[in-house]
Every structure is written in C-alpha cells, then in structure tokens.
C-alpha cells in the first residue's frame, strides 16, 4: 500500500497537465493520498512541461529521507565503543578500555604475534572449510540425486549433526594426536555438516518442471545435472556454506584453546594464565573482525551468483 501510493501519484501527475488541469487533480487527491494534494494548485509553468510537473509532484511522494544504513552502522559502532570505554573507565572488574586494547594490538602487530596467530587460525579454518564444503557439495548432490545414496548416508549425517563438533575434540585428540590434523578434522566436520544438509535440501527442492523442461529440450542426465540442478541448488549451497563457515570459525578457536602452539585461541588461552585481559580482548576483536570479513565475502559471492532470484 505504502509502496503503491507514490507510484500512483506519479502516474496521476503525469497525466493531469495533458488531460484537464485543475479538476481531476483535486478529484484524485483523496484517492491517491497526500502527494496529490500538491497538484491542486498546479504551477502554471509546469502545465506546458508535463515532465517537470511529474517530477515535481513526485518529489514529495517519496518516503521521508532515510538515513543510509552504513552511517547508522558507524554511529552504532562508535556508541558501542563509547559505552565500552565508559564501563572500563568506571572500573568494572578490571575491564580494559578500548585504548588499552588498541595499544596492545599495535604492540602485537609490531612484533608479529597477532599476524602469526591470525594466519595460523585462518589457515586451519580455510583448510577445514574448503575440504568440508567441497566434500559436502559432492555428497549432498549424490544424496539428493540418488535415493540409495541418501538412504545410506542420511542416518550418519543426521546423527553427527546433533553432536556439536567441539564434543568430538577429545576423540580427535586421542586418535590423531595434538598436531594440526585433529583441529582441521573438527573444523572440516563442522563445515561439512552444515553444507551437506543445505546442498541436499537444494537438490531435492529443484523444481520438477525445470528438470522436465530440460529433458524435453534434449538434455540427458549429466546435462540436466550440470545445467539445471547445480544452478538451481546454488542459492541453498551458498547459504549452507555461510553457516558452515560460521561454525568452522567457532570451532577453530575452541580447538586452539585445547592444544596449539599458535593461533588466536591459543593466544587467548595463554593470556588467561597471566590475567592478561588486553591480549584476550585483542583476540576476541580479531576473531570477530575476521569472521565478519569472511562472511561478507561469501555474501558478496552469493549475491553475484544468485542475482537471478526473485527476491521477496
């Protein structure tokens, strides 16, 4: 309703100068809401230039000027940091302020520990995430396409999905030692489980009519798969990957808390033993920022790849 009104007002405005100047405008006014009232006293010059009349009349019809979202984001962010600084200044349980955390971050950047930790964590996440989501896409497609595969795999997928990947860390450490393998394995599992379910949903949900349309155009199974099932399931897969990345990132930090020599989780764990809250906060902020950047990158990819979708 609210979206329709301005457009109607524009249409009215465009028509009025040509048809009959005063009367209809006034008559239309109650029907088309506020904006058309302005037309009741038309600008005499505008009558010769219908385009001008239309744009002038359209202007008040636009919704009230909206504050751009990025600006609001920035304001909210600044307010958050302010509240944090206030809380820290009034000594809430030894909470470090933003300035202290920034100083520590700079220090850690200079001696290279922050960079090294971030890279170590990122490496693990990317290794586990790439392996997990690639396998998940393959397995998800096979499960969606072949009922036999689905029946064989589904119990395991559903079972492991109910276990938080973190709960598997003890098992992984016992079986695979304390090197990189158990960490990457757990991350792999976290990414795999979210993506596989989404891919399965995507493949199962492909519109039957689209598959039939491809087949009557001469497409064989492989072409149907490549040209219909994959693109149709892509939005689901990308959503699954975003969720998978989220849980992979959550898992890496926890995995590093248990046994590691470097990484953001390790650094925080290490700082804990020295009551070094500044370093813990640097770790927290770094984890948040990196997670956000990765999520935005995937979102960007998703938007580019699924531009064809009818939204809302």
């Amino acid at each position: 309703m609210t979206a329709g009104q301005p457009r109607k007002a524009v249409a009215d405005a465009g028509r009025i100068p040509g048809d009959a100047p005063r009367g209809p405008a006034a008559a239309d006014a109650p029907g088309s809401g506020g904006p058309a009232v302005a037309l009741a006293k038309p600008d005499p010059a505008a009558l010769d230039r219908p385009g001008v009349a239309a744009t002038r009349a359209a202007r008040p019809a636009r919704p009230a000027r909206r504050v751009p979202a990025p600006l609001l984001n920035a304001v909210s962010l600044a307010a958050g940091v302010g509240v944090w600084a206030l809380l820290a200044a009034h000594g809430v349980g030894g909470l470090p302020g933003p300035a202290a955390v920034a100083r520590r971050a700079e220090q850690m950047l200079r001696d290279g520990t922050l960079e090294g930790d971030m890279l170590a964590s990122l490496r693990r996440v990317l290794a586990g995430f790439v392996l997990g989501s690639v396998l998940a896409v393959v397995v998800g497609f096979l499960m969606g396409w072949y009922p036999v595969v689905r029946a064989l795999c589904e119990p395991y997928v559903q079972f492991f999905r109910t276990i938080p990947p973190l709960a598997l860390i003890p098992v992984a450490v016992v079986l695979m030692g304390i090197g990189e393998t158990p960490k990457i394995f757990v991350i792999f599992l976290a990414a795999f489980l979210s993506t596989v379910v989404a891919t399965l949903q995507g493949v199962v949900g492909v519109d039957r009519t689209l598959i039939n349309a491809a087949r009557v155009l001469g497409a064989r199974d492989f072409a149907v798969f490549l040209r219909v099932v994959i693109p149709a399931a892509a939005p689901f897969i990308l959503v699954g990957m975003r969720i998978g990345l989220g849980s992979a990132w959550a898992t890496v930090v926890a995995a590093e808390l248990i046994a590691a020599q470097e990484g953001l989780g390790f650094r925080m764990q290490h700082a804990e033993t020295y009551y070094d809250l500044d370093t813990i906060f640097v770790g927290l902020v770094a984890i948040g920022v990196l997670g956000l950047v990765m999520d935005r990158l995937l979102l960007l990819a998703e938007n580019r790849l699924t531009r064809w979708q009818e939204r809302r």
Partner: protein
Amino acid sequence: MNAHRTSPEASSPAASEPSAPTGPEGSPSSVPSPSAPTGPEASPSGAPAKISFRDVSCHFPVKGGVFTAVDRVSLHVGEREFVAVVGPSGCGKSTLLNMAAGLVAPTSGEVVVDGRPVTGPGPDRGVIFQQYALFPWLTVRRNVEFGLRVAGVRGAERRRRADEAIALVGLGDFADALPKTLSGGMKQRCAIARAYAVDPDVLLMDEPFGALDSLTRVQLQDQLLDTWSRRTRTVVFVTHDVEEAVYLAGRVVVMAARPGRVHRVVEVPLPYPRTEHTRLSPEFAALRNEVWSAVHHQDNPVEAPAD
C-alpha cells in the same frame, strides 16, 4: 493453411481406433498388438498419423487403490495438424500429453510418434508447460539457446537460431533480460521460442495460457497461430478453455473424466488464418456451443473400474 485437411467428411472419424473399443465397456484384456501396422491409422486428412495413442492407459497408485488417469484412449494426430484436447479437470488430458512427451510412461498401450514408440523425452517433441518452466538464472536468449547448447550447436549458428526464434515471438528487445523481469505473457512467449529453437516436429502444449489474464491470452493465441502458420508443426494443445480450443484447433478432442477417456471429437472446419472476425462469426459460436455442451453435459461417467 489447412491445405492438408482435404476431407472434413465425418465429425469424428479416426478418434477411436476401430479395432480397440474405448470407454469403460470395452474389455480390459484387449491389449493391442505392438506390431500393428501404421497403415490403417490415418488422421482425417488421410495422411499417416504423426502421433498415435494406441489403446493407452495410465494408472497412478493412490491411497487405498488405483486412480485411472487415462483409460484405453486411442487417438491419432495427423502431420501438421493442430489438435486441441479439452475436458474437465481430472480427465487425464495432461497425462495424455505427458505420455506423448515421454515424461509419463503409459501403464498399458503405447504412444507412437513418427512410427517409433515413445520411450522418453526428446528434442523432436517440444513441450510448453503452463508454469513456463524458464530457467530463472538464464537470460531470455540463453533460455532459448538451451536446447541448442545441449545438442552441441556452437557459437554463431546457435546465436543465429536463437535470435530467429526470439524474433518469431517478438521478444527481440528482451533477449538479454532475466525471466524475473518479464510478465507472464512474455515468459510464455520465451518458452515458445525456446521450444521452436530446437525445431521440433511436434509441439505439445499443456494449458500454456491457463495462467494468463484473458486479454493476454487472446493476444498469445493470435501470436501462436501466426507463428504456427509460418512454421507449421504438429500441435497437441491441452486446455480447459472451450473457446480457446475451438479458436486454435482444426479438431477438438473432448475428454471425459473418471476414468479419463475420449468423449467426442469435434471437427473445426473454420479456415486459417483465423482472426477476430472468426471469433465473432456464427459458425464459430455454433462450434463453441457444440464443444461446450460436449464438455459440460457428458453422459453420466461410469465409476472407474479400480483394478
């Protein structure tokens, strides 16, 4: 345009194969011999049938029994003939079409196209769906190119043939648009271009204009006839709209429901090209009334023999 129609003598000559009785009274054991010669199966034009439904039945399992969607239907469609199939919902008209398309396998009997039994879908039979079924991630041009692409037609040749088909339905200005930006009528025109691009002998249309408003529907009917007159193909057009059936087709097959079977066949001896003038003529009105009463006043349907 209907030069092929030389003898509109009887009102329903070849609708039911003489050897195989249709209707519920026929013996269910009358299975046709698969090697039946195509000779006696002639369309009204006298030419050998392009599409032959030979005593086809199609049953679907439903809760607590079997639903007979199509019950021993025999029907022959001549080369370049435009046949419309009308009937109440549940009369199996879409199932009939899907069997010809190869998307649904008959439970018994067979569908023969060009002398070969249908075993699956193929590019020789283009299908137009009511829900358009455009690939939403492809532009109009790439949708139209789809069939050519899977057939391995390359580069410039593919583009030329796609553009030709797009021009045929008048979508030239929207070749690079995504389906989500098109209106329903434009989507269906794109689907028609896509079917025409692979140059099928047969067009099977399943209530293609059913989802459109009545003004758009009339426009698309005229455009379809125009396209058909320039590139004449054998068309089977399923619809629930009696007027549409009579306006488009040279022969209207009226089906009855439960079980789905051929109720009557009405010849439409109105000359092509058909125009608004045709639509307003008394002959048209008489035919429409005839088909209308065939659809709406069918003899009491006998309950389906659930076997």
